[in-house]
């Protein structure tokens, strides 16, 4: 496509050629290089009060940063193998950070002193892929291992149950159901999701309530719908489905989810999905799809009477250069930002952490939509950078300074 065609489309800005590509653009505010090798950022999680964010890296450490300034606080070292999940404890112990790893442990860290304060061992060579806190009395921690699910009372650190009959391959996810804390959901590489009742003496035979067969290896699950009565499920072959776990029924099945998402924006092929986000306020579910080059977007998922993946509502370009592994929004509604206009933080296989800023001024958004994203060509990147320079030269200058500053700060801290 040449420039003449691009200009034609620009005039019809109010009536886009295809679906309603009415989305929000986000620009980079900060970009922190967390390491200088071939290492990945796996996950970013925030403390309840947002005074710090924790980042798990493929170097088996967890680093902590300030989400507002990007300042590096410190790191928690101790795991001897891949970290699969991190999470801050709830408001009851706000400074405690939990992590689980392939080294068969679930560890607790004090995020102020970066020291390990507790360690639960799941048994020799039982990799831990996921953990969740819950139980009827809030005293249980469940962990998904190599085909086993183990439960401990975290107050006494004693193991209360070991469920080893319900899965025959790695249990990649365990979640206590948010509004029904005595129910535990597990998902595995064997393609099954199991729902357990965790009250009393737990065993596979009597406490297995339901089994949902996805038919293929499951990567991530989460809850959505009013009263968390539905669950979403992302598989390793990049398909998505939504289930009603009470009725044991599939609400929607997107076998060609990547193709559907690719059609819902004008950018490159969607290669994978990072996660799903649900907003309880708006009762809407989004799936975050990305390209191998690092661009990603929020695609709304409709699983009611019509089952579709809608047009991208938020697009994030120019931040990552590799696969995006984690997206942490400040608010549960994409597009909504906090008082400083920050959308959130993301991390990926380029070892980078990016902080995204929403530009609220309407004319900026409009010109981006018309000139760069309606036209599908190699010229996209060049044009976009041009428009960025034309419209917001001040922002870019300060951005570059900020990036260089943080890059040097993190380099000094790490070495």
């Amino acid at each position: 496509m040449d420039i003449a065609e691009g200009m034609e489309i620009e005039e019809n800005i109010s009536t886009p050629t295809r679906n309603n590509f009415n989305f929000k653009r986000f620009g980079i505010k900060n970009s922190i290089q967390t390491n200088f090798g071939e290492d990945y950022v796996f996950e970013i999680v925030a403390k309840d009060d947002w005074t710090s964010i924790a980042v798990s890296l493929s170097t088996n450490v967890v680093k902590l940063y300030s989400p507002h300034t990007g300042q590096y606080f410190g790191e928690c070292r101790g795991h001897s193998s891949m970290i699969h999940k991190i999470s801050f404890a709830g408001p009851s112990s706000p400074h405690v950070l939990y992590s689980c790893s392939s080294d068969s442990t679930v560890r607790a860290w004090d995020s102020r002193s970066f020291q390990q304060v507790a360690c639960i061992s799941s048994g020799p060579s039982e990799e831990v892929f996921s953990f969740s806190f819950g139980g009827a009395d809030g005293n249980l921690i469940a962990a998904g291992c190599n085909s086993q699910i183990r439960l401990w009372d975290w107050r006494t650190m004693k193991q209360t149950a070991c469920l080893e009959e319900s899965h025959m391959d790695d249990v990649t996810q365990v979640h206590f159901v948010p509004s029904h804390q005595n129910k535990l959901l597990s998902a595995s590489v064997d393609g099954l999701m199991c729902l357990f009742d965790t009250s009393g003496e737990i065993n596979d035979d009597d406490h297995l309530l339901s089994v949902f067969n996805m038919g293929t290896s499951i990567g991530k699950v989460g809850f959505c719908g009013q009263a968390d009565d539905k669950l979403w499920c992302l598989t390793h072959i990049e398909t998505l489905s939504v289930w009603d776990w009470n009725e044991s029924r599939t609400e929607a099945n997107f076998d060609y989810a990547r193709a559907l998402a690719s059609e819902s924006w004008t950018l490159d092929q969607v290669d994978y999905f990072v996660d799903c986000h649900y907003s309880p306020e708006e009762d809407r579910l989004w799936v975050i799809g990305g390209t191998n080059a690092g661009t990603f977007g929020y695609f709304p998922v409709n699983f009611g009477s019509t089952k579709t993946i809608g047009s991208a509502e938020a697009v994030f370009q120019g931040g990552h250069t590799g696969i995006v592994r984690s997206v942490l929004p400040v608010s549960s509604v994409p597009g909504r930002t906090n008082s400083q206009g920050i959308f959130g933080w993301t991390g990926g296989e380029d070892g980078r952490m990016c902080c995204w800023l929403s530009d609220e001024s309407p004319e900026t958004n409009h010109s981006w939509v018309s000139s760069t994203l309606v036209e599908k060509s190699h010229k996209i990147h060049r044009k976009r950078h041009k428009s960025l320079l034309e419209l917001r030269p001040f922002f870019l200058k300060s951005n570059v300074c900020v990036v260089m500053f943080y890059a040097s700060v993190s380099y000094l801290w790490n070495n």
Partner: protein
Amino acid sequence: MGQNMKPVRVYLWLELSYHYTHTALAHKPYHFSSGFSLNSFLLSHLTLSPALSAKLQSEVLRETITQIVSDAREKKRNFTETVELQIGLKNYDPQKDKRFSGSVRLPHIPRPKMKICMLGDAQHVEEAEKIGLESMDVEALKKLNKNKKLVKKLAKRYHAFLASEAVIKQIPRLLGPGLNKAGKFPTLVTHQESLESKVNETKATIKFQLKKVLCMGVAVGNLDMEEKQLFQNIQMSVNFLVSLLKKNWQNVRCLYLKSTMGKPQRIF
């Protein structure tokens, strides 16, 4: 433009036309080369050559399939040999990178002798009888009394299970986790779909999983299938698996095809 060019031209033509021409034609390459003008050669060369070196080449695949089939015919076996696709990956870290694991449905059934049992409601049991599919109803399942040994025996008798909506919800209560542990929890069949097509779908679905090492094998067919069916199964599975890799073909180090008793033949 000398002798060296001829094979290349023929090669490109075959790449284009495999799906349209009979296999017989492909065995007579030199007939085509004389029919080509210089222009058409250059055109096809320009459009196809970038893709050629980067991907699995149809001609190589077709020839290898023929080779494997003829090798196997030389020695008679007492069973139908399975054809396996072996994939070696590179530039991929099984620890850091996203898991490479899942199931994919192939166009042609690779293991037709797969035994399936229908755990059905009244309607499905009737349908199953009509198509010669073994089945059990809720009463029969209740008779197992959640006995672990009996459930294990049931799991061993079949390769896979199907279940009606009304029955599948009761399985944890009727049978406990026995089928889970055996990796044979049933797949749902609704009354809106044909039971026979669901059976075929189950038989045509293969599992693949990369564990700690960078190679894996998948069963993609058997020697009772036509060469064309083998070709389609292999091409489809290769394309699907490559689409899940972040660097696509740059992540593939090698591809081999092998029949159960034969030696591995390289195709990439």
